[in-house]
């Protein structure tokens, strides 16, 4: 891996950390469920860096969390988060970033905004919940429906993040096209 790729991966891992440290935003029309920007960082890593570097950035971030850095939203960190019921979502993060990056790469002919919405919905929501809900079932012995019901409160917030990720990707593509490395 070149110096440049290594540093890009590290910077996006730092970006995911920084986004998690921003205060959560309560979205009024969602009944005030607080959403944090952290999973937005996961979507952005895939969309901006492409599949391999995006997934590596997320893995690096999770590695720091496992080492004990309290970088998850709300200042959580350490090995405890990997023993908690939401561990499936964390496992889904790098895979989600990979899929989002792959979709960006394969849809070059599409408009950035549309491609990024598809990438974020499939990678950032579909894949992550696809790991998260079975993980919750395995950890808590809940039935699949109940586990899915329990995570549904976060879905509206995640769709807001999809829109933000797509608009950010389009802004970046317009301002500095070569920065959209997933398509470079």
């Amino acid at each position: 891996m070149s110096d440049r790729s290594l540093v890009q991966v590290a910077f996006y891992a730092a970006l995911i950390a920084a986004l998690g440290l921003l205060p959560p935003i309560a979205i009024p029309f969602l009944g005030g469920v607080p959403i944090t920007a952290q999973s937005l960082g996961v979507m952005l890593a895939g969309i901006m860096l492409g599949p391999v570097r995006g997934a590596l950035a997320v893995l690096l971030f999770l590695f720091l969390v496992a080492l004990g850095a309290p970088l998850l939203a709300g200042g959580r960190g350490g090995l405890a988060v990997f023993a908690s019921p939401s561990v499936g979502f964390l496992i889904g993060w790098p895979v989600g970033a990979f899929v989002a990056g792959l979709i960006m790469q394969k849809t070059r002919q599409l408009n950035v905004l549309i491609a990024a919405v598809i990438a974020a919905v499939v990678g950032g929501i579909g894949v992550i919940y696809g790991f998260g809900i079975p993980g919750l079932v395995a950890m808590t012995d809940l039935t699949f429906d109940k586990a899915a019901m329990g995570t549904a409160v976060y879905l509206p917030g995640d769709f807001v993040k999809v829109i933000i990720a797509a608009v950010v990707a389009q802004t970046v593509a317009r301002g500095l096209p070569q920065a959209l490395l997933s398509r470079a």
Partner: protein
Amino acid sequence: MIAAQIPGPSWLHSLPTRFKLLVLLVSGAVLFPVDDILILATCVGLVIGLYASLGSKGLVQLRLLRPFGFMMVFILGLHAISGTVETGVSVVLRLTAMVLMANLVSVTTRMDDMLDAVYPIFLPLKWIGGSPRKPALAVTLVIRFAPVLLNVYGCLQDAFRARTGRHSSWRLIAPLALQALKMSENVAEALTARGGSKGLSNND
């Protein structure tokens, strides 16, 4: 940016990191299939006892797990709706024991000791021409640049406030992502100019 830690020294701090990780792994594997409420409650009691053995600073640490407590209440609630309260109780006890145990390892182990302990998992990187030290370099870069990026965000926020009078907006995330990539270019050049990360593999 420092990990939440119980200040040492204590008997738990002085145990070798790999031993602590091994105990954690084994106890997780042993506990996972257990359903008996009495056994699980005993385990929770034992782990709390371990925290107590570190004195009041250990017990204070338990308070930091409040968000986890809310999650447990929520899971118990979902089980109650499904009419499986008993399963719910054993699940909550098992998760509490496992999370408390994992947390105990993290709060009594320094991050660099943890990094040293898991270093061997990166040795296979050599086979594909990489350096096992690169992950450690990447970790250092993240620790250094997370606060830098927060600082950049702060500047963007100030400028935004001066322009609009509002405090903050999601619109600042695009320039933040751009700045991150631009800064990474400069840092990569600086790294290359100083011999690059390739230089690391020659010293192994």
